[in-house]
């Protein structure tokens, strides 16, 4: 008997799109399936939840075969796959308590509510809840059936940017408490990096790479993986547009002045430019640094910078050559304040 989720899913949806992927998730492990819209993520959700059949392959949880594309098909009601849907799909005609207890006993619903810290919402209607609260009710409803597998379909996409970061943090805590395998479907690299132990990169119905965030960051297999993995995530505090970084002796200027306090900072690798001499003009963020590594990624080259701010920068191979970039070379880096995004971390 094999513990956790084992799935080989083939779905032939149309002449132009087919899904063909293999997934394995151990008990307790959180794995992200990261891809663009149209990569086949929702088809994957439907297949695992039992809302659509696979054309071929096999889906098994803890050794129990749920669908083999042939004679075996376990109905969604019998699967014990807890699903947190993209926009939560709470039942508006029922109270929070009745939502939590929809597939479980009242006692279990009450216990889950305590675990998730939503006991004070039980008598309310889902319509009265904030986005973050709705998400917790949706998670609680799925957990209350004591599922063998937890499936989260874009659990943060319905939230606005501010609540998203805070909710992501509490979601991470709650996910740690669930002992079964967890599959997180997302298009947002931040979700994948911050919530998952391992990531499957998905493009056009295929898994193009799998590994830890660090592995994908170091050796992205496709240009999509490179773009995703290169996104620089930093922690710091924002004081009226001046960002003091938590882990590096450096400050940055951002145009996101209204996000005060602890923030999550994202810098896209293409937003950073490199110059042989100190640049003049508009960019408020310029600093002298050294090249730590040069990684060719096909049509772009990823430059890893060393202290004071170790981030990745994507430039063309031509620029790499003309700047003579190699490990140890001194270089000026610059990035516009408008390209540095700050969002609250939820630690208040």
């Amino acid at each position, binding site marked *: 008997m094999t513990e956790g989720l084992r799935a080989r899913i083939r779905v032939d949806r149309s002449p132009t799109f087919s899904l063909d992927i293999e997934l394995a998730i151990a008990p307790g492990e959180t794995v992200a399936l990261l891809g663009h819209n149209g990569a086949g993520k929702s088809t994957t959700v439907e297949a695992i939840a039992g809302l659509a059949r696979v054309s071929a392959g096999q889906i098994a949880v803890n050794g129990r075969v749920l669908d083999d594309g042939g004679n075996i098909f376990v109905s969604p009601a019998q699967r014990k796959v807890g*699903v947190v849907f993209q926009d939560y799909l709470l039942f508006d005609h029922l109270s929070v308590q009745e939502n939590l207890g929809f597939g479980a006993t009242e006692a279990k619903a009450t216990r889950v509510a305590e675990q998730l810290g939503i006991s004070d919402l039980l008598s309310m209607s889902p319509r009265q809840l904030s986005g973050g609260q709705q998400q917790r009710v949706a998670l609680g409803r799925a957990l209350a059936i004591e599922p063998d597998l937890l499936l989260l379909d874009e659990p943060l996409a319905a939230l606005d940017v501010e609540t998203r970061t805070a909710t992501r943090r509490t979601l991470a805590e709650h996910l740690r408490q669930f002992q079964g395998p967890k599959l997180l479907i997302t298009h947002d690299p931040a979700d994948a990096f911050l919530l998952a132990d391992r990531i499957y990169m998905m493009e056009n119905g295929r898994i193009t790479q799998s590994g830890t965030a660090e592995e994908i960051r170091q050796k992205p297999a496709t240009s999509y993986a490179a773009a995703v993995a290169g996104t620089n995530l930093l922690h710091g505090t924002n004081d009226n547009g001046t960002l003091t970084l938590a882990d590096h002796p450096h400050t940055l200027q951002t145009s996101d002045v209204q996000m005060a306090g602890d923030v999550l900072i994202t810098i896209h690798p293409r937003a950073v430019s490199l110059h042989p001499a100190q640049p003049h003009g508009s960019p408020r963020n310029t600093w002298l640094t050294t090249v730590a590594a040069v990684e060719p990624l096909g049509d772009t080259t990823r430059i890893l910078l060393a202290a004071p701010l170790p981030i990745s920068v994507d430039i063309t191979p031509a620029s790499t050559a003309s700047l003579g970039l190699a490990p140890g070379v001194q270089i000026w880096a610059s990035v516009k304040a408008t390209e540095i995004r700050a969002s609250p971390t939820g630690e208040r």
Partner: protein
Amino acid sequence: MTAPRTPSRAPRALVVLSLIGGTLFVLPLLGLLTETPWSRLGSILSDDIVVDALVLSAVTSIAAAVLSALFGVPIAWVLSRLQFRGRAIARAIVTLPMVLPPVVGGAALLFALGRNGLIGGFLNDVTGFSPFSVWGVILANTFVAMPFLILTVEGALNGIDRRHEAAAQTLGATDLEVFRRITLPMIAPSLKAGLLLAWARSLGEFGATITFAGNLQGRTQTLPLAVFVNLQSADREPALAISLILVAISLTVLVSLRDRWWGAR
């Protein structure tokens, strides 16, 4: 560019035409109100003919609405959810009574369920059913009213977000539980509207009833039938009184449904 909410100057031609057209609706109402013998209204309304018709109409129209829901909701569900050959034809057949002249509907019922009809003799032998009874009235009413409920409910079933049903399934609900605990509550407002429409249609039913169930006071003579009969007799006052009741009921239904059909203003 958006049009202003109220034009600064209403085109005069539109206003004039709408006023002329409006008189078509207002005049009959005025005729009814002025002819009504208000002082003797109480005694007329307690007349046997009127009371019998009132009770019969109340019973049969409510029964028809309930039967319409009992069978109409499953029919709407089948039309909305199941893929099968001939679905378009099936939908046409169950909504045919909406466009069919009711007299033709009544005649068709008679050919099927009358004493000499397709299965009428057999039905009479086994159950004692006769068209000329309360049951005949209920059947005729249901035949004419159910399409309204089916159309309303099927529209609602097609309109709700079906992913809620999927979510319920993943929580362990069987298909019937999904229908009872999710689908039905989600379409409840439309079901209520459908019930009201079906009931109002039954209440006003004339052609199918008189053709199929006849016109027997106390047994099959509903309010509209009583109006018709009394208009042709020397004493037209009961007809006026009953018409007044029907107008009052119809207006009440329309006003209570107004928000659903045109949106609250």
